[in-house]
């Protein structure tokens, strides 16, 4: 257990030491989204009956922050260690693939939660939120963060340079989160894009998460939970297998 705890601690300390960049900046970005989109669209859009657009937006922004920061944490930590070469200090130790997986993913989740919580606390000033079923909120936040932490781990293992990681982030993670219904209900989309949205696992994370706040969602929360759980299991299997085989880590 000490090995896992140490790696977790190191991963936490790593982002904590550069908190301006890893915590404050994403919170400010999310606030800007809320201020701008909330201001422009508040009077024009109502997604759920009785829920203001700004209130609708908050859970989406919180989840988006959780997801993007969870991904950023594990992926950037790994690629930095790989490129600077100091990953060797971890590879030389008796840490098992399970310990490495759990430590990287848990640290990513914690960073995601810290940013998400920060966004939520600040946005409480701007929007009146309800918390219909907190358990769903917690379950989807946990799973969403775990999934993106795992994706970050896979991306960090796969990428050989920052450029490749940036491609992964900008062409996969960011579009997938933006198109997952952060700013809108997917039911407002034309049929084709509605179908495309349903193929996006990120949609179920955000939809389920939002259900916890309003008791409204595009898809039944249990369906979302099942899909998200399966997605997590598959990704974890891939990540643990890569670590076990030493793919691109041990030559």
């Amino acid at each position: 257990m000490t090995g896992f705890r140490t790696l977790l601690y190191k991963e936490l300390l790593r982002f904590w030491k550069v908190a301006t960049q890893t915590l404050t900046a994403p919170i400010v970005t999310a606030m800007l989204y809320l201020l701008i989109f909330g201001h422009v669209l508040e009077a024009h859009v109502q997604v759920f009956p009785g829920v203001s657009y700004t209130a609708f937006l908050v859970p989406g922004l919180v989840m988006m922050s959780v997801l993007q920061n969870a991904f950023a944490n594990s992926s950037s930590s790994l690629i930095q260690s790989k490129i600077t070469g100091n990953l060797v200090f971890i590879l030389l130790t008796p840490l098992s693939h399970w310990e490495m997986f759990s430590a990287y993913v848990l640290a990513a989740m914690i960073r995601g939660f810290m940013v998400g919580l920060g966004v939520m606390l600040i946005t409480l000033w701007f929007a009146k939120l309800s918390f219909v079923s907190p358990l769903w909120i917690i379950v989807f936040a946990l799973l969403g963060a775990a999934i993106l932490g795992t994706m970050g781990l896979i991306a960090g293992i796969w990428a050989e340079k920052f450029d490749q990681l940036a491609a992964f982030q900008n062409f996969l993670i960011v579009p997938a989160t933006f198109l997952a219904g952060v700013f809108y209900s997917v039911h407002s989309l034309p049929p084709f894009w509605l179908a495309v949205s349903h193929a996006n696992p990120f949609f179920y994370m955000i939809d389920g998460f939002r259900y916890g706040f309003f008791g409204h969602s595009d898809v039944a929360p249990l369906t979302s939970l099942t899909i998200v759980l399966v997605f997590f299991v598959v990704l974890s299997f891939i990540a643990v297998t890569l670590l076990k085989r030493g793919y691109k880590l041990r030559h």
Partner: protein
Amino acid sequence: MTAAIRIDQVKKRFGALQALDGVSLDIASGEFFGLLGPNGAGKTTLISIIAGLARADHGRVSILGHDVVNDFRAARRAIGVVPQELVFDPFFTVRETLRMQSGYFGISGNDAWIDEILHELGLTAKADTNMRALSGGMKRRVLVAQALVHKPPVIMLDEPTAGVDVELRQTLWRFIGRLNREGHTVVLTTHYLEEAQALCSRIAMLKAGTVVALDSTAALLKRISGSQLVVRLAAGSLPASLHNLLSHPETQPDASTGARQYALRVTHHDEVEQILAQIRQAGLVIEDLQLHEADLEDVFIQIMGGEQ
């Protein structure tokens, strides 16, 4: 007795390059072992396989009886590796780095030993300095310290003295020597052959992925019989009776003075007397005279050259 490191028929290929081609070696517990060879001979690949940083295509490696693949946790606990590249984690101080490295090995509360390592390697004053702020030599010391946090029975150093100053070399060898006397097995790769000659009791030479020599340092030195006598004659040339002792062809005379230099093989020191007598009898004047003891570098050149 279980070997500290057992390497059995290890092969490793990178694309078209056969980096290791069936290497077998046993390193006994308590040895100070040298792994020598020119660049690209496969030393670092072999070290990477022993350390678990690379995987062999064929063959097995075990550390104190623990297979480095199937029983990797026990194997990695038994070995401390100082990597060749000067790598560090810029987020942390020296002490944080060493505490974390201990933690990865499952050790908490390791401060007494960390303090001792810091002291022995002359790092005490830098304990709370961020890694980024250290000079290259200091970073190298931390690299050594990181390999020792878990008191590994086997210590493997991959060119630890490349580009470091005399003071660090002395500090390092004093500490590593002490650990070796206390029973730790030490495996060293270096391009400084005088270092290997002075420290290692046994040496393996690697060339193009195969072991071309494996013997005690003393036995390797005996392979070059005797020494070399270098004489500089003010004028004239070496008597024909001595030509069979020449280790290099006759050199051209010095353009300004006309002096010639000859290098002669000498098996026993009493031969020197006979050579000098023959030169005197020929009426030649010796301007300068030097006797070179054969060293590991001569052996290395002979072995590496001889196999070409």
